[in-house]
């Protein structure tokens, strides 16, 4: 993902107001980052078992989430992530608390 596209994605997610919008941005971001088929990135998809993310991918995801939200993702919150739905919930919660 080039810088301009990345900044646009970050700006879009920062302005997202619904879970659907956040999921849409997560889908497009993760599809490019991890070379995944967008259709496989559903709310129920498990990060490790279904999408085959390893710990290094998970750090990349955490860094990306931090860029998107503009705040550090809590270590304990990161440990609890299991599915894409959890990622969306976390971003939604953090965006809500920032507003």
């Amino acid at each position, binding site marked *: 993902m080039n810088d301009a596209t990345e900044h646009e994605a970050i700006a879009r997610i920062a302005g997202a107001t619904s879970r659907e919008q956040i999921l849409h941005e997560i889908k497009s971001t993760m599809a490019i980052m991890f070379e995944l088929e967008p259709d496989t990135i559903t709310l129920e998809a498990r990060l490790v078992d279904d999408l085959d993310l390893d710990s*290094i991918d998970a750090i990349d995801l955490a860094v990306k989430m931090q860029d998107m939200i503009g705040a550090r993702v809590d270590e304990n919150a990161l440990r609890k992530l299991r599915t894409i739905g959890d990622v969306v919930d976390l971003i939604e919660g953090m965006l809500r608390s920032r507003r």
Partner: protein
Amino acid sequence: MRAPYRAIRVFLIASAFFFFWLGAVLQAWTLFPAMALVYRDELRRRRACQRVLKHGFRLFHGYMRVLRLLETKVVGGADPPDAPFVMIANHQTLVDVTALLATYDGVCCFVKTEHMNNPFIGRLLRYAGHIDAGGGDALGGAAAIQAGIERIEQGFSVLIFPEGTRSPRGGMHPFRRGAFELACRAGVPIFPVFITCNPPALMKGVPFWRQTDETAQLRLYPWELIDARAERLTSKDLTRAVEASYRLELDSRAGRAENAGECGARPRRLGS
């Protein structure tokens, strides 16, 4: 004579670990909570708790030395830098971590989740800012690396045993990538320490009452710093290169390498 001698040694080893756990419980439930009242700032509190722990670990190793159970020495090598670094080491004995934390200042260690959840020692570890290494799952590992980066940004160094568990007798488990990824991401050097213990003692899977009759000699050999950025390697390649250096040293010590010459009490350059 042998049976009474062994019984006395088992008793002495048991006493060392009894005092270790007693000290841990007292610190975790009395001293550190009291220090938390004095040190309101979390970073100052962590540093103060680490200083207390360092003295405790020195006492523990001093006790084992006096009783001729285990003698710990740092051999050669340069001092670590004043700025944060990622320390790595092979994992020979149960007391490698206490030996390293008794030697070096301001170090937070990656610790197994089961230890962090232990009601006695876990509390102690959290006060001193040590890091839950995760239960082997990807998200736990990512969270641990994130916590490691945070500690480094706060001015602490981080200790990781890249094998993830204690080494098998005479060998080494494959290195995991986390320590190297952390160093690359945090932009800090790697400080490798090669550990030996002769005769082998306090190894994984060996109960404490089945230890050597001789005084175990635990040696810490600090190697040259590895500047992860200057090496221009990915964390994956760095992992392989550093693991190869450790294996070469192990082979050299075991007399298995073709060019087995002088054995390792020297700083080593990456890949040399």
